[in-house]
């Protein structure tokens, strides 16, 4: 992998910036270069939220994501806005709980009930972002599972470590199931 561009989108409060940071930190643990950036709506209170991550084994010059290799959309609005700006042969990960109208897409599209998994399987909807990371890493191998776990545990408050570990695992699990179902 030379360079991989990811876009994580949804609404404010879903923890997508944190997810982006963790992803970038995992990449660093893997020995890669990483750049993370995010959009600040001038008044993004509760509105749209977007984090971008570029991972590369080489130097990263231009730090913004153009056509993403992978796009996570955790809201319908985000999906409508960003899914189109994804590589035709890229990957789309959707939170099926929020994205009821998935777009036409030529690449791979995974609809996962991310927030529902967080709520019902892990027990707290605030870890949906970590579930999403598990899904992403599960379907793409963009970062290693070990590094991702380390990165997650480094960032989250101590008393939530178990919770987050569980969330990550749940995400991976569902990715596995998906891939299996796809027959890959």
């Amino acid at each position, binding site marked *: 992998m030379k360079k991989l561009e990811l876009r994580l989108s949804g609404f404010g409060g879903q923890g997508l910036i944190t997810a982006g*940071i963790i992803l970038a930190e995992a990449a*660093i643990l893997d020995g890669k270069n*990483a*750049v993370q950036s*995010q959009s*600040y709506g001038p008044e993004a209170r509760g509105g749209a939220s977007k984090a971008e991550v570029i991972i590369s084994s080489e130097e*990263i*010059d*231009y730090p913004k994501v153009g056509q993403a290799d992978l796009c996570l959309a955790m809201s319908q609005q985000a999906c409508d806005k960003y899914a189109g700006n994804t590589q035709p042969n890229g990957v789309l990960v959707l939170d099926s709980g929020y994205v009821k109208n998935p777009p036409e897409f030529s690449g791979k599209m995974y609809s996962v009930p991310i927030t529902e998994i967080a709520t019902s399987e892990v027990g707290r909807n605030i870890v949906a972002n970590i579930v999403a990371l598990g899904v992403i890493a599960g379907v793409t191998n963009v970062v290693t599972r070990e590094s991702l776990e380390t990165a997650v545990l480094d960032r989250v408050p101590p008393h939530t470590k178990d919770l987050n570990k569980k969330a990550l695992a749940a995400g991976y699990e569902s990715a596995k199931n998906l891939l299996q179902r796809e027959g890959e």
Partner: protein
Amino acid sequence: MAAKTKCKAQLLSGNEACVQGALVAGIRFFAGYPITPSTEVAEGLAEELPKIGGRFIQMEDEIASMGAVIGASLAGLKSMTATSGPGFSLKQENIGFAAMTEVPCVVVNVQRYGPSTGLPTSPAQGDIMQARWGTHGDHPVVALMPASVRETFDLTVEAVNLAEELRTPVIILLDEVVGHMRERVELPAAEDVELFNRVKPTESPDTFLPYKPAANLVPPMPAYGDGYRFHATGLVHDETGFPCGKGADGNTLVRRLQAKVEQRQPKIARAETFQTEDAEIVIVAAGSVARSARAAVKEARAQGIKLGLVRPITAWPFPEEAIDSVAQTAKALIVAEMNLGQMILEVERIAAGRAPVFGLNRIDAELITPEDIIVRAQEVTNNVR
């Protein structure tokens, strides 16, 4: 987070790296007033400074912040403030005071989209000329423009060092892209970072003249409380530090202020060049835009277009030599900036007709892309053929 200076890869934003650089460089006083997109610098130092006995104060506004920073520096602490556009405008009068009284201090300006309130969270490079000319009267200015997180750390250290060495305010001109983006960075160990501390007088208070320059044109500087009982004033003053009301003293003083920076121009002024040797078209770009330009140069070269890059690292003094040299070799220069044309004025002046100079300007709050640059280079190529 404690001062993260172990030599270990980590993910940091430009603003965070600025905090780390400040701590390592010995900044022990910060006064500020929040403003997007610079606030993380204040927030980081509010957390870190007290851990090492340093002082953080949130003042009532930017003017007061700048005043407090100058007062603290006179009292002996390495001092800094951080702000963005509107706050930078407000600080100008007191920045001039620091220049006139030769008080070391660092002013971080994380540039945002202007004029006025503009687009507070969006990037621009619209304060380059303001950094040079924002305060009234003639005065020297040193301003640095990092392009990466690591360089933000390095140039913060350098800003503190230069301020202390030259006894002058030094400005760090970040842009919002560099300030907010996080990237992998390995910071040097604190003990590997070279530091400069202001030179204190060795003379006794009885014979000491506080504004008598040393050979390097910079006067040694005692701290308040050291027993020198010196006077600092923004009025024209002579070597004793007292106002005299004489134009001749103004001439001596203001020319020396200018000269102490100018004579170090070759050392301070700096640009990075990238593939300029055989370049037919040279891009001039700084800060985040230089990253796009670098990508563009690589891509263009892959397509067989001979592009090169000059990246001014110091906005002021402007790296004249680097421009001078490509003006002699390139067929054309393109100055790419997120403003309506500021650096280009200097480039045109220095090129002095030897190579045509073209602008590439975006003010739509988006970072200029590598594609923008390649397209413009193609246009220019057709143009100069």
